[in-house]
């Protein structure tokens, strides 16, 4: 029913902010200050209308009908010879009071029922959900029109009923927020330790919903003002007391005789609603800002790039005879911070990948290995950029290539196998269409040819029923199958280099080996180079030719797998090896939680 729902329930289950802090911050927010000052003036005008108004708002001077503004009547007179300025002051009083009544009632009923439904659940939850859907089945104004034929035009009754309708908005908001925290640990803990329901609600749950409820209040106030003005405009509101809507309706009826008359009530409604909306917005900004704690600025100052001066342990220089497929020199990757500084995540990395070679890049999460890999594709997350260094691939420096030239490289020359198979397929399109699309774009294949090749590829990567999988949606296949699909996608355009970002991490242990086998055999068959990002020495040992160990944004040790494994020299590498041993023996293969390696921030 409520026409405006700018707050989504999901948005709200954030950390509460303490009230006094919020007020202090609001006082430093210029928008909040200006709008609350405006609202204060309007409210003062309404409260002291009796003192400020030069005339009785209902006093008709029949000798002065539809007069323009003058020193006697600041805003002129209306069709019944009443002073517009005085009426406006009193209209503000009644209209605001009506809107506050609706909003207040809505908040009390909605928050209470939302708390009960969300915290206790049971039959009340399903019943209230049903009632909400009942109320939402009708536009509010239709309900009020129908109600009006029974209760008459009283402003207060109408706004009270509208409050009931609006309460569904508060109910949903509170319900969702409470559901979000109902089973949180701290609530559970409180419950287990015998804290009474009432104090759980007041201490833990109310504090969660307070801020979003306050924001919702400003919105509901706007909605109530708009609806009330609309009803008044239709002439369905009590005419014996001045209201904004009634003034609008009166002025609209005289629009041809006095086109200016409509301005004053319209402006007052507009300014009030606008101030409320902007104030609500500022409030939300401050609430959200407090919800995301400020991180300590770890970045260096603007444009200042720090290269690592710790030397890399090099087991054996790269074979100079064999041409580099990919050569990364002095790569620095950083994220621009709001304060202008750069937060560096990769600080001077050198890597070379030869044709037909699998180069493992190993490190813990946060070491910068994934950032390095994404730099090659120039697909760093938002805000990230290559701050220094070169990425040479086939004679071009990818670091300086234009976006359109880069697009020609992606897919066709360098392809990508992601870590988490399920989240890397567009859930809305079939697997087939996602395989066909790049081939048609990058290789200019016809639809039929691309489809034939896609089926071939699916078969090649070991999918039992390619035709069925082709037609399937991502959620209909298993993770292992999805990863095979992504591998098929990576080799579909005959790229020379594949960036594989922890391709087996998210998979079942039993599937991991199969996927590695597949990668190895494809690599041999197609003679492509692979830059394989992993945190698992087992994987490196299995299929890599060369390995670089990364820590804190730099390469600490690099060399052929055999040499490095036989004799790790860097302390960090050594510690990794000992950790593996524990892992393998004590816990089995380590499976990283989904998404940890994606960002690196």
């Amino acid at each position: 029913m409520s026409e405006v729902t700018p707050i989504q329930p999901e948005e709200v289950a954030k950390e509460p902010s303490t009230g006094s802090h919020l007020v202090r911050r609001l006082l430093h927010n210029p928008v909040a200050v200006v709008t609350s000052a405006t609202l204060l003036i309007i409210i003062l005008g309404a409260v002291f209308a009796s003192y400020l108004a030069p005339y009785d708002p209902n006093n008709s001077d029949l000798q002065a009908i539809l007069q323009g503004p003058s020193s006697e009547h600041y805003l002129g007179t209306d069709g019944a010879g009443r002073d517009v300025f005085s009426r406006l002051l009193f209209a503000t009083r009644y209209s605001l009071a009506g809107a506050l009544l609706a909003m207040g009632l809505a908040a009390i009923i909605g928050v209470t029922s939302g708390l009960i439904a969300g915290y206790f659940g049971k039959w009340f939850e399903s019943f209230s959900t049903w009632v909400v859907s009942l109320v939402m089945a009708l536009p509010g104004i239709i309900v009020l029109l129908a109600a009006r034929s029974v209760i008459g035009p009283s402003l207060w009754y109408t706004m009270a009923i509208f409050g009931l309708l609006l309460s569904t908005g508060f109910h949903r908001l509170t319900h969702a927020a409470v559901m979000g925290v109902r089973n949180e640990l701290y609530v559970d803990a409180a419950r287990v330790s015998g804290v009474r329901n009432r104090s759980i609600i007041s201490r833990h749950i109310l504090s969660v919903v307070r801020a979003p409820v306050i924001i919702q209040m400003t919105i509901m106030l706007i909605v109530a003002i708009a609806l009330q003005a609309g009803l008044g405009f239709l002439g369905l509101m009590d005419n014996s007391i001045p209201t904004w809507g009634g003034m609008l309706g009166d002025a609209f009826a005289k629009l041809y005789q006095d086109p200016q008359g409509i301005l004053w009530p319209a402006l007052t409604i507009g300014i009030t609603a606008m101030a409320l909306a902007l104030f609500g917005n500022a409030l939300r900004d401050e609430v959200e800002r407090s919800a995301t704690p400020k991180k300590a600025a770890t970045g260096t100052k603007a444009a200042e790039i720090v290269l690592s001066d710790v030397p890399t342990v090099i087991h054996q220089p790269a074979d100079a005879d064999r041409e580099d497929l990919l050569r990364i020199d002095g790569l620095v990757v950083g994220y621009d911070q709001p304060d202008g500084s750069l937060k560096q995540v990769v600080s001077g990395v050198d890597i070379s990948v030869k044709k037909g070679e699998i180069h493992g890049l190993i490190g813990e999460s946060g070491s910068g290995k994934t950032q390095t890999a994404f730099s090659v594709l120039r697909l760093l997350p938002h805000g990230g950029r290559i701050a220094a260094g070169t990425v040479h691939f086939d004679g071009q420096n990818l670091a300086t290539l234009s976006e359109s030239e880069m697009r020609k490289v992606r897919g066709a020359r360098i392809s990508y196998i992601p870590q988490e198979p399920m989240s890397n397929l567009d859930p809305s399109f079939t697997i087939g269409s996602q395989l066909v699309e790049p081939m048609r774009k990058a290789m200019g294949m016809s639809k039929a040819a691309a489809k034939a090749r896609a089926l071939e590829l699916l078969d090649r990567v070991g999918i039992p029923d390619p035709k069925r999988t082709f037609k399937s949606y991502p959620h209909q296949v298993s993770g292992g199958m999805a990863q095979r699909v992504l591998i098929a996608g990576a080799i579909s355009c005959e790229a020379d280099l594949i960036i594989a970002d922890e391709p087996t991490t998210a998979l079942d242990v039993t599937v991991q080996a199969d996927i590695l086998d597949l990668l190895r055999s494809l690599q041999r068959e197609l003679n492509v180079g692979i830059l394989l990002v992993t945190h698992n020495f087992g994987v490196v040992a299995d299929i890599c030719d060369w390995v670089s160990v990364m820590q804190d944004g730099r390469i600490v040790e690099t060399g052929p797998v055999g040499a490095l494994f036989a004799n790790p020299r860097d302390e960090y590498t050594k510690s990794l090896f000992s950790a593996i041993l524990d892992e393998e023996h004590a816990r089995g293969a380590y499976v990283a939680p989904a998404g940890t390696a994606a960002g690196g921030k």
Partner: protein
Amino acid sequence: MFTRKRAAIVATIAAAAITLAGCSGSDSEETTAPTTGAATSDGAMAAPEGTLTLGTLVPVTTFEAANAAWANESPYMQAVYDTILRADPDGTIVAGLATDWSWDDTNTVLTMTLRDDVVFTDGNPVDADAAAQSILRFQGGTSPQASSLRFVEDATAVDAQTLQITLSAPDPALTTMLTQNAGMVESPAAFDSADIATNPVGSGPYTFNAEESVVGDSYVFDVKADYWKPEDQYYEKIVMKVFSDATAMLNAIQSGQINGAKLADNTTIPQIEGAGWDIVSGELNWAGLLLTDRDGALTPALGDVRVRQAINYALDRDGLLQAAAAGYGTVTEQIFPTFSTSFDESLDATYTYDVEKAKQLMADAGYADGFDLTIPYTPAFGATIFPIVEQQLGEIGITVELDEIAVTDYISGILGQKYSAAFMQLQQDPSDWQIAQFQIVAAAAWNPFNIEDPKVEELAGVLQTGTPEEAEAAGKELNAYLVDQAWNAPLYRNQSTFVTDANTDAQFQVVNAYPYLWTIKPTN
């Protein structure tokens, strides 16, 4: 036949007032020789052509003659039905389906001779039996005017062409009622049909075209062949469009979508005149405060004539007319219409706006400190009138409380003796007798406290049964008495406005909200 003569007298005065041309001929000639009516006397008869599109304010409540409404619905009804009698624009009663009619000596038996050449659209003849049945059905129906036939005891067909109506008491208004919905004749064969409310079976000049019509929005009528009075058929087709919104009507007028319209809002008149349209206007209602509790049953103060007079002095009628009706109308202090013989212009200067005098009268009556008065309030009458009345009565110490009630309960509230006074607009009926019956005598609906004043009852009795001369004198005396006693506080008569484009003419119909259909015709 005195009532016909009385009607003629009324008509002469009205004609002088409204200055209508060519319609005030001698009644006996016209009533007995209908083919030489007003329309043909203007010139040669032209074949019906073109379409007339009219703007109306209300949709048809029902097409069933027995329950039909009149006033703003009259054009719909006149398109499809004939009435037993007809009225000229000035109110003169002329022949309709009946060519001749006469009262017996007791004025309780009306004998009428009907035409023998009229048929219903279902092919049945319009005869005395159909007319008699229609009258009796109307009397027992739910038309707002059903009670206007309350004196009818019986209606019978003496023979095919002779209709006899027997009354329980003389009713000087009966013939007028027979020119309106009470006189509409519907085919008895249709009485029991299921779609009688939407499918009229009458004998009127046009037939209802249900297929092209959109009920509630526009009604289409096609000209009927072989109509008994072809000179009334100017158009091949008439479309009546309902406008519930004054702005929409103004647009339709300015863009030439319609040829004539009854205005909902007089404040659009300047724009309409600007578009080159003609204004046809008159007055139908008086508006003002009904001081219903004259005996002081609820509000003792109102039982004192000085208080009622004070109220009359306290109201600024000119200002109220400006504020509430944008000046469209005429201020008045009497409830009788200008065309009535009882109307006396000098009475309108009885209570000239004078707050000091009002206060003095209040003090004389012992109400120097005022009293409380509750008045029902509904937004239906507009936003301005109530607060102004409240304010002006407040000036003389009367504390008015506006009791806000739903529009559906407004009339019931007043008639149900819930309020001592109320703002209202009441129609000004064509005859003094009807006015007395409607709002003056003890039994009148709009005398809700049924206050019986011997002088009033006596004078009203003369209106019903006296000679024309006696009736005229009684009417004048009654009017002067009511004004002097401040029975009510009339404020003004509203202007009722019909507008026509350059190609269309229309005549204001006295006491009717809409011009009669046959007066709306092409210019020239």
